[in-house]
């Protein structure tokens, strides 16, 4: 037990759990303030609705895992990938273009999704390493460019559009071979497919790359102390570009996995998809650990599904986003939270928190 208490992984799991509890408490207080009578039932809906429909939770967790991994991977190199949304959008559009225009099978479409995301992630990486431009601002620009390009692109290929031209054609009608195989998972939820397995495998691969390879070591070194890494002979510029390309590819794959299903229709809305920002939540809740991203993505997906059930009690679905926002706000000073937990155990092991 004492070894467990000083284990940094254990501490960060505790810190995440603590911020979840505080976030939920804040949400409950808000519900109480808004409508005290319905608050307990509303909260119960938020917390239990997902159990009935775990297949749906898993299906919606697929893109969350991928964008979460994308943000987490970039974090390891000290980059804040706020552009996951644009990369996700481009991944989706690349995949759907291959599926609907060129009638290609699903695995080729997934490769296209990876390519689309990687290209969109490459620009912030290049700008940062070549011109020393902050990746946050380039990522935001790339989000807007991606949104406009995607609408422009899709709306000008009538083969991609559904009879209602504000969205892409359903793959059932457009190209059934581009739908990801279901492998029996559809017994859980009709849209669930091997996407969840792919996402979990990718998360494990990312963990191996970050924790067990020389490349991953170099990336972490750049993130912890860029000048130190350069002094040790690590090519920091190349690593920044590579990590942003990989982060983009992960988010792009998420877009592909989400939309290559029977019912996934890409809507031509002229706003930035919120998925990229959800990815930030997933990554922060997981403390940027790839395996942790799987669990935090499932948690956030579970909460979101619960939010839909809250409507029956007269609360807007968005109440769950408030809980998420509080959790992220706490994650911003997670170091403080972790130090508090360590102090709570009566051991002032500051070096543990720094790890």
């Amino acid at each position: 037990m004492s070894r467990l208490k000083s284990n940094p992984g254990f501490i960060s799991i505790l810190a995440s759990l603590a911020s979840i509890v505080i976030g939920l408490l804040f949400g409950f207080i808000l519900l109480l303030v808004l409508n005290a009578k319905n608050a307990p039932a509303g909260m119960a809906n938020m917390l239990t609705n997902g159990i009935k429909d775990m297949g749906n939770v898993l299906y919606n967790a697929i893109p969350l895992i991928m964008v979460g991994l994308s943000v987490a991977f970039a974090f390891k190199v000290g980059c804040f990938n706020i552009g996951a949304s644009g990369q996700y959008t481009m991944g989706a559009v690349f995949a759907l273009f291959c599926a609907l225009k060129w009638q290609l099978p699903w695995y080729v479409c997934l490769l296209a999704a990876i390519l689309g995301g990687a290209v969109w992630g490459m620009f912030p990486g290049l700008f940062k390493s070549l011109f020393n431009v902050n990746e946050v601002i380039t990522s935001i620009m790339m989000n807007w460019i991606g949104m406009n390009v995607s609408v422009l692109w899709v709306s000008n290929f009538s083969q991609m559009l559904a009879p209602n031209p504000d969205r892409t054609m359903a793959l059932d009608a457009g190209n059934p071979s581009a739908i990801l195989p279901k492998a029996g998972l559809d017994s859980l939820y009709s849209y669930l497919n091997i996407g969840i397995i792919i996402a979990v495998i990718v998360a494990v691969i990312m963990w191996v790359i970050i924790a067990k390879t020389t490349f991953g070591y170099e990336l972490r070194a750049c993130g912890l102390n860029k000048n130190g890494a350069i002094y040790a002979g690590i090519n920091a510029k190349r690593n920044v570009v590579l990590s942003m390309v990989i982060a983009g590819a992960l988010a792009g794959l998420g877009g592909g996995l989400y939309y290559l299903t029977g019912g996934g229709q890409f809507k031509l809305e002229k706003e930035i998809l919120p998925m990229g920002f959800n990815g930030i939540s997933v990554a922060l809740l997981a403390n940027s650990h790839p395996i942790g991203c799987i669990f935090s993505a499932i948690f956030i997906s579970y909460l979101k599904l619960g939010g839909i059930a809250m409507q029956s009690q007269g609360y807007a679905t968005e109440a769950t986003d408030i809980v998420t926002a509080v959790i992220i706000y706490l994650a911003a000073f997670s170091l403080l939270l972790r130090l508090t937990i360590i102090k709570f155990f009566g051991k002032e092991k500051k070096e543990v928190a720094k790890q």
Partner: protein
Amino acid sequence: MTAPAWGSIINLTIAFAVPLLLVALGGMYSERSGIINIALDGIMIIGALVSCLVLRAMSNAGWGKTLLSSQFGLLIAVVVAGVSGMVFSLLLAFAAINLKADQTIGGTALNIFAPAFSVVIAWAVQGKGLTDIEIPKWATLGYKDLGISGDVKADFLPNLFKSFHITVPIAIILLAVAWFVLYRTRFGLRLRACGEHPQAADSVGINVYRMRYSGVMISGFLGGVGGLAYVLVAGTSFGGDVAGYGFLALAVMIFGNWNPGRILFSALFFALFKVVATQHALFPFLPNFKGLKEVSCLYNLIPYIFTLVLLIFTSKKSRAPKAEGIPYDKGMR
């Protein structure tokens, strides 16, 4: 091009430039003090939400029947928007200054919080499913209210003042104030010092924490007013988002090199392209790309690509505050 078209173009450009100008100036105050304020989008939403609720309450109470009461009501809404934005920005200031948290993450949390909060509150106030808060018609002045006569179809002036909001003169005043405060007052010099080299500022007795709090709070005020300014020109109701104008304002601020005068120029530039994108029928000389759908998206791309290209050329001599984004720690050397 005809006189009415010129009038409309100038009117719309100014209308869209005003929120960008206000919010970008807000971002400038915050960044000049050393805090990256990525939460501007969320601050705009909170400012818009609270002031729209106030306007709604006024309308229900029977305000706005006369020109004077409508404009006085709007003035109150502007102050309310600013103060609510300021209060909301305290969350960022507390995390970034006292807790030395990651400023980008803290700001992202506020950006996720604000639109969700806005919808939840709108439901709670107006009833289930009613996300949109209607803006009273009296908030917008037409050219006739301003005493301008003429034919909308033929003359320049009626088009120039086709819709007018009190936020336009307010923005111009706040721009002048921003320039004066930043370059002509002791406070401005100290604020800039905290963004460039807080340790040096501290060594001559400036309270860095207090200066940074001021920077973030002023930016919260301007962000909130900008949120209301956006809602007034964007449509007839507020639905819990500001279409990413807070992020656009960040681009305007960078394009404007953290300098009030250049921020005005870049706000007008971004707004002009917004008008080109949405109303390209007003510009007969522009290619209309026959056969291409959603041409507006093509024109919408231009300011972003411009900013990216500009970032390449200006990165070497960028005037970005040197200490922005770095939490100030007294004990650090």
